[in-house]
């Protein structure tokens, strides 16, 4: 297993946003078949990591590498990264009035798969996924994220990932704002993304979703770095003891 | 007016009588120019002030321009055309010399100022007072610490005598005489106004203030103000105006030039409350260099016709401009006010917020321009105009213009016109407020983005004026 190359390898990643350094040396390896969770307080830099991975122009890499399938993707545009097999489920996906969900999904699927999917086949596939995620048909005619509730946006994000079948799915706070029923459905959607060829990176503030999507690896994010890593049990410990516990532990270990 | 004066009067004892603010003194003037405008009068003005030759030449050239330029064909043409330039006194000197301290100010003038509350205001927080009474400054003081910091705060006439080099370098560079008919007129006959120079890095914490009054019948008031903020400095300048009411019309045509050098910040606050026969035709413009910030905070309540569009030319990268204005037009009043933002450098930003109320047949117009030149990439501008109409006789116009010659910009304009919300009125009245009280409260709320930017005493004064205007107006 270790002989394999990681699907994603983040090495000493430093990122600036408008002259302010947010990520201060992140190291993270994710192999195919793994589910990772990054947990941390608001403002710790978790979302910056997700935006940087998919290549938002506002997030400038000042140092370090992002190797995806062995290739440094730092210079790649977002669409190149997406075609390469990376997808981000946004925490706050933007609305695009006038562009219908169905038009958009077809254009996107065509771009990612590199070929046009016959309309009939595409519709079947789409309907099946929509049913799984409890997305009503009328969404296809609506404009992207325009007037969607928080929960609806999250489902449509997962729906997109289900269609695009990325090698690496990054989920940014996908659990926030979901009631328990929606959480279960969305979690199932996330679990369906997982197979031995793909990996999932869950970014979350709460432990809640980890009851449904079980990560093998949990990382604690603080001040732009991963300060502690562990197995799935770490999330439960965090839930019970709070983030301060990690910080205290860090400080005391520094002293001793 | 000071807060004290305002606080011991209630709405009840002022009632609708607006003349409280329009008392009138007996005229007692040392020199009064003849009516009408001639080369001789301009020369005479310059001679009396012992001005350098270049200023006389400047004035005479401006007079030429004024006489040649046609009247603007926009705004309120009827009212503009009714101005009788032949029937205006272009210069009045009410006392021979600027008084050095309060005791030397002539008694009659002092009484007028007392009633306006200037000394109280000064005692409280004035950094310096340049109170312009008629065309000449009669009272002037400046705090010692400002002097020590090297700040210059003088009336323009003294400024020209004492700092000719600075004034010659900047005078008329922001607003040339030929800019428009009224800037030409001002350039020919200007008298008084303020000259402020803030040295590099000096931040003046307390606002500088000046009061202006028009007192002689048919007298034009043509003050000229120039403020230069050297790099990294800050100054807040406040002018407040009240004027007595007369039966024939008066003309107020000021020119205000602001120069904000890199990294500096100028805020210029005006509360204009001219009596309702004054034509208030003012040209105000600022040049904002790199990383500087200029704010015009502009309240227009009085006058018969105001045409005033404070503008900011954003000439250096990242310069920021704001115009925050309110206008109130009552019976026979037209407030034609607005703002201009010229984006001529990258990453410049601007904000215009305009609020107006028309009542009793009054008319308010917002007239604005946002211009973005090519290569002013990353510029952002946002304009928001809200108008309230108090009755079916009144009128509100909005005339914004956006000229965008650069792609990479974000420009937004929004405007609404409505009447005072019945639901809001009902809600407040259901809590026991009378309709007048509820209306005044809603209107104070409507103007709140403006008043919150004013020093406390001005905010109190403004709310008071609004209450006066509103009382008895509804129901």
């Amino acid at each position: 297993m270790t002989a394999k190359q990681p699907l994603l390898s983040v090495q000493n990643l430093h990122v600036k946003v408008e002259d302010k350094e947010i990520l201060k040396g992140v190291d993270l390896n994710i192999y195919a078949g793994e589910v990772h969770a990054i947990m941390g307080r608001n403002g710790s830099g978790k979302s910056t990591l997700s935006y940087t991975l998919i290549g938002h122009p506002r997030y400038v890499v000042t140092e370090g590498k992002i190797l995806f399938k062995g290739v440094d993707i730092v210079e790649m545009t977002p669409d190149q990264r997406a075609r390469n097999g990376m997808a981000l489920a946004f925490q706050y996906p933007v609305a695009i009035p006038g562009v219908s969900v169905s038009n958009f999904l077809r254009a996107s699927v065509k771009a990612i798969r590199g070929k046009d999917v016959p309309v009939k086949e595409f519709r079947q596939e789409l309907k099946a996924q929509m049913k799984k995620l409890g997305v009503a048909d009328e969404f296809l005619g609506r404009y992207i994220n325009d007037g969607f509730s928080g929960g609806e946006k999250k489902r449509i994000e997962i729906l997109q990932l289900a269609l695009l079948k990325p090698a690496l799915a990054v989920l940014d706070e996908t659990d926030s704002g979901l009631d328990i029923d929606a959480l279960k459905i969305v979690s199932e959607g996330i679990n369906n993304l997982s197979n031995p060829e793909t990996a999932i990176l869950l970014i979350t503030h709460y432990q809640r979703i980890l009851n449904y999507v079980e990560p093998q690896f949990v990382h604690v994010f603080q001040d732009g770095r991963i300060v502690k890593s562990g197995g799935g049990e770490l999330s439960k410990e965090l839930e019970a003891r709070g983030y301060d516990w990690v910080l205290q532990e860090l400080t005391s270990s520094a002293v001793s | 007016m000071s807060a004290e004066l305002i606080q011991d009067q209630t709405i009840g004892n002022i009632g609708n009588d607006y003349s409280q603010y329009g008392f009138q003194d007996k005229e007692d003037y040392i020199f009064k120019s003849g009516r009408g405008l001639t080369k001789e009068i301009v020369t005479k003005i310059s001679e009396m002030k012992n001005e350098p030759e270049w200023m006389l030449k400047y004035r005479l050239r401006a007079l030429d321009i004024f006489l040649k330029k046609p009247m603007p064909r926009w705004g309120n043409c009827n009212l503009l055309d009714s101005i009788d330039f032949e029937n205006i006194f272009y210069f009045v000197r009410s006392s021979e010399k600027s008084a050095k301290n309060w005791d030397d100010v002539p008694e009659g003038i002092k009484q007028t100022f007392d009633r306006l509350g200037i000394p109280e205001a000064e005692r409280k927080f004035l950094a310096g007072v340049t109170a312009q009474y008629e065309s000449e400054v009669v009272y002037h003081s400046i705090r010692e610490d400002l002097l020590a910091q090297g700040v210059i705060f003088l009336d323009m006439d003294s400024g020209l005598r004492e700092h000719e080099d600075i004034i010659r370098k900047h005078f008329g560079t922001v607003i040339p005489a030929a800019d428009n008919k009224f800037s030409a007129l001002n350039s020919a006959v200007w008298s008084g106004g303020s000259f402020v120079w803030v040295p590099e890095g000096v931040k003046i914490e307390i606002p500088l203030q000046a009061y202006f009054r028009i007192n002689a019948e048919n007298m034009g008031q043509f003050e000229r103000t120039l403020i230069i903020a050297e790099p990294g400095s800050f100054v807040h300048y406040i002018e407040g105006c009240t004027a007595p009411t007369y039966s024939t019309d008066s003309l107020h045509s000021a020119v205000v030039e602001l120069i904000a050098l890199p990294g500096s910040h100028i805020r210029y606050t005006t509360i204009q409350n001219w009596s309702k026969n004054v034509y208030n035709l003012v040209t105000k413009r600022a040049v904002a260099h790199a990383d500087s910030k200029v704010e015009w905070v502009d309240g227009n309540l009085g006058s018969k016709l105001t045409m005033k569009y404070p503008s900011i030319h954003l000439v250096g990268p990242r310069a920021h401009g704001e115009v925050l204005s309110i206008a109130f037009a009552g019976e026979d009043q037209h407030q034609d006010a607005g703002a201009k933002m010229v984006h001529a450098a990258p990453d410049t930003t601007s904000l215009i917020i305009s609020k107006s109320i028309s009542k009793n047949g009054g008319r308010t117009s917002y007239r604005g321009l946002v211009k973005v030149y090519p290569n002013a990439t990353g510029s952002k501008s946002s304009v928001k105009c809200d108008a309230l109409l108090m009755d079916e006789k009144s009128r509100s116009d909005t005339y914004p213009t956006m000229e965008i010659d650069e792609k990479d910009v974000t420009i937004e304009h929004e405007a609404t016109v409505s009447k005072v919300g019945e639901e809001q009125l009902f809600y407040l009245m259901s809590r026991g407020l009378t309709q007048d009280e509820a209306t005044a409260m809603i209107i104070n709320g409507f103007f709140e983005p403006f008043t919150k930017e004013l020093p406390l005493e001005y905010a109190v004064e403004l709310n008071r004026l609004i209450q006066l205007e509103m009382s008895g107006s509804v129901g």
Partner: protein
Amino acid sequence: MSESKLINTFARERVDNLASQNGEPSWLKELRVSSWEAYLQTPMPTGRDEGWRKTEIDSLDLSTLNAIDLSTKNDLKAKLPDWFETALTFFDNHSGVVAEVGHSSISAKLSADLVSQGVIFCSIKQALHDHAELIRPYLSKIGSDQKFVLMNKALFNSGTFLYVPANVEIEGPFVSLTHFTSLNGAPNGVAIFPRLIAVLGKHSKASLVNVLSSEQGKESKSSSRSLANALVEVHVEAGAKFEYLELQKFDDNVFAITRTHNQVEQDAVIKSLTVAIGGSQLKGDIVTVLNAHGASSDLQGIVLGDTDEHYSFNTIQKHNAPNTTSNINFRVALKGNAQSIYQGIIEVAKVAQKTAAFQSNKNLLLGAEARADSIPKLEILADDVKCSHGATVGPVDREQIFYLMSRGLAAPEAEELIVTGFFRQILEACTIGRAKEWVYDVLAEKIHQV
């Protein structure tokens, strides 16, 4: 001879000729002559006039133009432009098509049912011939002091007449095409003066698609401009409902000056969509007068500019009566170094209490040299009103582009999708047949053009 130059003397002759060559009644000749005289007395607008801001009206030399007659012969077999044939497939339920293609005229064959109900849909020439007394009052009902309107009223010699009698409701749209060749093989440009009059009787209901278009002749090397001066007058009488779609698609030789005047009476409703996608200079005025209690209008506008096209649209919403409602949604996207000047005014008269008027103008700048001016104005003289307007100018939202790119779309693809979406929102309002799909295709084609 059916051509004449537009310099004063010739044109006066033309006014006379039109009257005699078409066998027009004397009252019509008098109308033409009085319009011509008013035209002569009206000063030529200049680029300094507010409504003609930044247009190249000063460079339009009328004396070089030859007025031509469209539709001089009836020819049911005349060849329609291919794209128009395509367009018609979107209106397969149409109630009638009138097309003027160069000199040929194709007249609508109305169903017996429509004819029996008294519906008229034909070329204006035919209407003047067959229904002179019916059309007569509508020729002078809407006055004007506009130079080019007066010019059209003196010289109009093509266009369409729609008359829907009271209480008649018609489902399928009427379709009208005015198409000409901007260079007639001559060194000089040509001038056409189409006039469309639509009358919706009380409580009637109908829809109309009007296409104004041109293509260059074979000898397209000449630099001289042609003029299309079109007048559209719509009378929506009490309780009637009218939906109107206009497409302006001229070639890059054409200076088009169009004026649409909608007169809306009590409780009547007009919905309209104006789409401008080509021409050298397009100057369009859309005036909507809400004349009586309860009248309402909902107007959409689309400008899609490219190369050095210039668009100057002015919308005027006049509220002359209480309880009237108007809405304008005008969207502009500019590629290349195209330029747009949008001016919109909401005028609320003193009597027009309880008016609700809204206006929105959004401009997307796509080309690095594209320029947009927006001048939304309000003149409100009544107090119990709800009026607002908003305007924005800027490039495509970068966050939207990023979102689509993160789903695999390349940047240009993402931009195209967003721009078509920008217009689709406007198109949603159009309910004429499958019109919105047609317009969407037409727009998508131009957006995609490199």
